[in-house]
């Protein structure tokens, strides 16, 4: 198994193996972070943090999941932490955040994903704004499915839940998006 031998090298601190890990998975990590954070600067920063953490904590990797699944988990966790940090910072501190309402779609900045087809650009910008207001788990599931193109089973492995749970998350995410978009397109 390639992963097992490769992980052994990584655990031994082999720098060439680590460079290969970065080369192989940088697109996965960067694109996941980009979909969740909706900012290329933040996504690049998080991608760097993910690989540093991967290098430092490869010793704890048990090999039960694939290396890519493990990296997805680190990326998702780090991206959510960054979202929470930015949200607290924007609202002017933790205490204020306890009393303020969630962001409305209209307050959020525009994000143009570079991989979206030209014909869909405008709608995708609206959709990203709506996605940013979803609860964390729904946001992750929807982003991983729509932006990363992962199957429900793969998402279940990343989130450590069953396929049925992922399907429920996707269903609720779509329902919430529909509500948000109905309000958005209201005349």
């Amino acid at each position, binding site marked *: 198994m390639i992963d097992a031998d490769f992980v052994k090298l990584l655990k031994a601190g082999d720098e060439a193996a*680590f*460079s290969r890990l*970065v*080369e192989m998975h*940088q*697109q996965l990590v*960067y*694109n996941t972070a*980009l979909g969740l954070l909706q900012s*290329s600067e933040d996504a*690049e920063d998080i*991608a*760097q*943090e993910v*690989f*540093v953490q991967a*290098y*430092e904590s490869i010793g704890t990797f048990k090999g039960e999941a694939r290396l890519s699944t493990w990296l997805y988990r680190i990326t998702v966790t780090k991206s959510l932490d960054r979202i929470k940090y930015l949200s607290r910072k924007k609202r002017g501190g933790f205490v204020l955040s306890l009393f303020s309402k969630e962001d409305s779609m209209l307050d959020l900045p525009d994000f143009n*994903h*570079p*991989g*979206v*087809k030209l014909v*869909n650009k405008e*709608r*995708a910008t*609206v*959709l990203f704004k*709506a996605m940013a207001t979803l609860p964390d788990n729904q946001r992750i599931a929807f982003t991983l499915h*729509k*932006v990363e193109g992962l199957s429900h089973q793969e998402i279940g492995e990343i989130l450590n839940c069953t396929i049925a749970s992922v399907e429920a998350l996707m269903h609720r995410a*779509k329902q919430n*998006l*529909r509500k948000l*978009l*109905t309000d958005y*397109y*209201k*005349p």
Partner: protein
Amino acid sequence: MSDINREDEILKTINSLDGVEKAEVPAFLSVKVKARLAASKKENAFPFMFLLAKPAWSFAALAITIVFNIYMVTQVNAEHQQAAKTKDVAIESFAKEYGMISYSAYDKSN
């Protein structure tokens, strides 16, 4: 916008990410990762370097050091004074015991 059009627009919006392509990874990401890793290794080698990284931390550390020093100096002084007093009393009582005190003629109390 009619209801049918609105419903159609909502559906199209929800599906607007279908067929999205991967975004290109920023240039030199792997080089930046290596640089950050090297910085992280340095940081781990000197775990208290964060005290110097931000002026607020440096000032706080300096203030704590100064306060601790002042406390120690006053504490040591007090101990010295106490020790000196105890020493004087001991010598005096020893001298009294053996009649070694020579009183001055000018000493009013005697």
